[in-house]
């Protein structure tokens, strides 16, 4: 084999390996878009209901939205597994169980600490837990997921500390928007 042939082969190898790495399934992208939309609707609705002094209706807003999110996540997981390009992308069940475990953890805290008496504290706990989940998950997958978690956590602290009146609206636009934008970024560039 001549050096020119070796160079051509090495170039072809690098191109293929790069293409494989770039054409990841973007497994988390659709989940982030789904939950970004749910957060946008939920937090916007919460802001409006609080403005209308209809706190009693907030649970009726979030319960179907969360149910929609869980059902949507299961549907997405099955669909992704069927269309997966790599086997690692079919492993959505452990991921779902991980998030359900975090939800159960939050449920116990909300119940035992009676956080349900203060909607903002309850929302803060849930948001911080989700942020922690993203940070942890990103440590095992891609730095961009951890960055998203860090952003959501910092956003929650900033809003609740300095702009409490705009916590829900801020989270609808910036939190939900970041999830949607991050999800679309992963779908476009891989993650």
């Amino acid at each position, binding site marked *: 084999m001549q050096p020119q042939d070796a160079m051509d082969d090495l170039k072809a*190898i690098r191109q293929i*390996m790069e293409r494989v790495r770039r054409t990841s399934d973007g497994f988390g992208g659709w989940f982030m878009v789904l939950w970004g939309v749910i957060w946008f609707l939920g937090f916007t609705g919460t802001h409006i209901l609080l403005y209308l002094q209809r706190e009693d209706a907030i649970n009726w807003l979030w319960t179907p939205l969360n149910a929609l999110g869980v059902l949507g996540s299961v549907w997405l997981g099955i669909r992704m597994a069927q269309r997966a390009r*790599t086997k690692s992308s079919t492993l959505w069940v452990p991921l779902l169980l991980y998030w359900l475990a975090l939800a159960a953890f939050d449920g116990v805290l909300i119940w035992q600490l009676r956080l349900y008496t203060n909607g903002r504290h309850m929302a803060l706990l849930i948001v911080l837990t989700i942020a922690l989940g993203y940070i942890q998950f990103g440590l095992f997958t891609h730095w961009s997921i951890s960055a998203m978690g860090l952003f959501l956590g910092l956003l929650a602290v900033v809003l609740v500390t300095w702009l409490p009146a705009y916590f829900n609206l801020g989270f609808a636009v910036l939190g939900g928007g970041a999830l949607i934008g991050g999800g679309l970024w992963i779908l476009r560039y891989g993650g």
Partner: protein
Amino acid sequence: MPELDPVIHQPTRLRIMAALAALDAEDRADFTFLRDLLGLTDGNLSVHLQRLEEAGYVRVEKTFIGRRPKTWVWATPEGRAAFAAYVDALEDILHPKEKS
């Protein structure tokens, strides 16, 4: 002149091994993904995978996800080692003075 593995030296098989080596060690590629990535037909890819499987460089597993059939392909440790040795051999051809 370094010796080149004749199994991997064939251009299509070299591209298949490159694609599989790009995955994490424990990961597997879908047959149709490989086929589309490399621009091959089902038959062509099958023939080359069979040759690589005979050499012990790849494994092929047919399974179902729900009702959909899935064929997973992955490089064995021997296959990864052979591919790495092949890339080293190419580097030796390009830069013979840099390696003893």
